[in-house]
């Protein structure tokens, strides 16, 4: 939508439509991509309606019973509830825990990506627009952030600020914004050299107007496409952090924490505690990656 409005001076409308058609055609022609989209849709719906679908609220300790812990899939609990995917060490229904875990994973993935995107895009835009010392300062911070493995930064951060969904989101935003800043800066620099921007500058339009109305809409496309793949990496990062014991609170397990909890029971033959959340996580990451990758290729973005 934004594209058609401001791209108008340089890119004619028909190019836009044909691109869109091209993308749609490619997606239609690829059964894997279609499958991934359907799967992602299902997972999103399951996560969204988890409280209505789940047989148990796994975050409400009063509804759990330790006496029902580590039951095999299909077992019947003391209260008559059937645990189709078994229970974990706290007597949590695995099915419910996975549905709620999906919710946490997606919540963390989407909000942290959105947050990182907002900060990164703004930083990249400012760097590209003002150049010079501002650019250098921002890009050195970005280099610094990208110089460390993201898991290390997140671990140190969470070890100092403690557990919690909100804190995990903050940590992921802090480790991910830098890559968006770099991408955005590169895209905006290319755009800045184009004639319509020069024209806008010569017209004496205010810098803010140029940045937000011209530069931003025309350079954000590639960053947005890359961000779809980054949702998957944000979710992976959350799962890793929770697996390592610094992520979400133990009473509100995400998929990563559920896998960590189940890990120690694998050798005891109680595979379901780790295996089912593992499968859910793989499906979620895989569908997000497939969709994101397809989008990236269709728009011919390099990230």
């Amino acid at each position, binding site marked *: 939508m934004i594209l058609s409005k401001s791209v108008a001076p340089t890119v004619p409308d028909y190019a836009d439509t044909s691109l869109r058609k091209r993308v749609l055609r490619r997606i239609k022609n690829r059964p894997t991509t279609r499958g991934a989209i359907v799967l992602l849709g299902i997972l999103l719906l399951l996560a969204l309606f988890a409280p209505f679908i789940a047989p148990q609220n796994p975050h409400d300790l*009063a509804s759990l019973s*330790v006496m029902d812990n580590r039951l095999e899939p299909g077992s019947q609990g003391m209260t008559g509830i059937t645990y189709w995917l078994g229970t974990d060490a706290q007597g949590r229904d695995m099915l419910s825990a996975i549905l709620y875990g999906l919710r946490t994973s997606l919540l963390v993935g989407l909000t942290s990506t959105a947050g990182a995107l907002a900060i990164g895009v703004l930083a990249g835009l400012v760097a590209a627009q003002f150049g010079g010392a501002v650019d250098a300062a921002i890009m050195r911070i970005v280099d610094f952030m990208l110089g460390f493995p993201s898991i290390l930064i997140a671990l140190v951060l969470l070890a100092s600020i403690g557990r919690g969904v909100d804190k995990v989101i903050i940590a992921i935003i802090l480790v991910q914004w830098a890559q968006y800043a770099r991408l955005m800066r590169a895209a905006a620099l290319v755009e800045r050299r184009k004639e319509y921007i020069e024209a806008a500058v010569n017209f004496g339009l205010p810098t803010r107007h140029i940045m937000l109305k011209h530069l931003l809409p025309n350079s954000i496309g590639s960053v947005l496409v890359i961000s779809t793949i980054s949702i998957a990496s944000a979710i992976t990062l959350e799962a890793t952090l929770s697996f390592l014991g610094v992520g979400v609170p133990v*009473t509100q397990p995400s998929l990563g924490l559920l896998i960590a909890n189940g890990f*120690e029971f694998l*050798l*005891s033959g109680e595979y379901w505690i780790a295996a089912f959340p593992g499968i859910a996580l793989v499906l979620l990451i895989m569908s997000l990656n497939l969709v994101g990758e397809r989008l990236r290729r269709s728009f011919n973005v390099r990230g």
Partner: protein
Amino acid sequence: MRNPIIYAFVAGTCLLSAPAWAQSLKIALSSEPTAIDPHYHDLSPNNALAMHIFDSLTKQDEKQKVLPSLATSWENDGKNRWTFKLRQGVTFSNGQPFTADDVVFSFCRTLKNETAIAGSFADITGNFTAVEAPDSHTIVITTKAPDPVLPNFLSGVAILSASTLPHGKLTFDVANNCGVTGKWPVVGDFNDGKLAIGTGPYKFKSYTKGTSIELERNDKHWGPAEPWANVTFVPVPNAGPRLAGLLAGDYDVIENPAARDVSRIKDDKRFGYVITPSTRVIYFQLDVEREPSPFVKTENGKNPLKDPRVRKAMSLAIDRDAIIKRIMDGAAEPAYQFLPTGMFGTLPNPPKISYDPAAAKKLLAEAGYPNGFQVTLATTNDRYINDSQITQAVAQYLTQVGIRADVDAMARAIYFPRRSKKEFSVAIGGWGSTSGEASSFLKQWPATPDEAKTIGGSNYGGYLDPEFDKLIRTAIVTLDDAKRSELLQQAGTKVIEGGAFIPLHFESSVWAYKSNLTYLGRADQFTMAMQVKPAK
């Protein structure tokens, strides 16, 4: 004289057709010692390791009974003087003879130990007013107040060799450096083995943090020779891989396989196991002092934990048997006091705390909290057996009677400093009695701190009961065993009634091993190569 022994040994080895590895032993630990320095931190894994390389004046057997070690006998003058007769003919692994000087040197070092954690062992030697050596094999210790369990405590104080530091005449004159002219060693100085010189059954060989600790048999040891020429300790914190390593033949002995996995080796002829009840009690410590408390939220803004009825309700709300059955897989005993029944100074029949959620709700209503309140339980997730799972289960039980409980689980490296800064309202704790007496817990946790800080060091919840304080302070300086036992029982009863500590269970330790070995489990949970013998 040596040759026949070697021949006999070789012949014996051939007859038994023992495989080549029979001489070396590999043990997988769940919790790695944090140092080779035996005075660094009074922590079970550290103490267990220290006992391979070093001896103390006394030692404790697997049931924590005190036995002679470097001291052959000891007596008390009925007040605060203890005389220890030292063993003759003992040499350190560097060939130096063991004398009273080494004892004075070692006691001084615990008081001149810059890198020690939380004054480890100085809480024992800090009570000494004088340590004298009338002759080379006698030590006379004078304590500030009578200390009836000094021989028990001395079993933990490792004796170093004075020959490792330049010194003049050694005296227990701490203010004047005890006669030592060199620089007192710090924790790191022990890791390359130069200072790890002891009289123990094994010698230090190498130490790689996080990877392995290697020991070899000390042929100069005064006691019977150990059957193992080489011993390797490997830290494997995760229970799964630890057991997998045993099953695959990588380890000869492992400590604490998950109790639920014992069934896997139960019917396997290749392996054996032993489950030993320990003296380690697991409990929750409540903040009964502050108003309001940081992790408690109530409608009236007060700290409900100050009300004994609320504390009792919390204790009644917890189903200890269910936790032991479902979380501990049976490898624990329910705790109704703070040291297992039968140990010195414990109650023979502590009142059983039965699971009674109805009574708990009633008590809460009486205390003015019919709708309960909110609380966060703080717990480690890498210290005690199933610690985080236990706390979550307790949170479930509290929530079921209306106390909406949340769990904050963290690594011990974060937890312990935060707890000592009193940052929690309800905190998990675990305590094994090093002396084997009830006084160990009572003087450390519920007692009001004294000036010298030798008691009440862990009273983070601000528990205050003057009657109890009087009892415990009298008990720990009473030499008469019958009287002391009586006083400790009375003091223990007060703490149980006070309810500021909610006992859950006593941990049982499990060791699994190859079936060509035997293992004698210890109540103090120490994993030691000396407990492993070839099966006959």
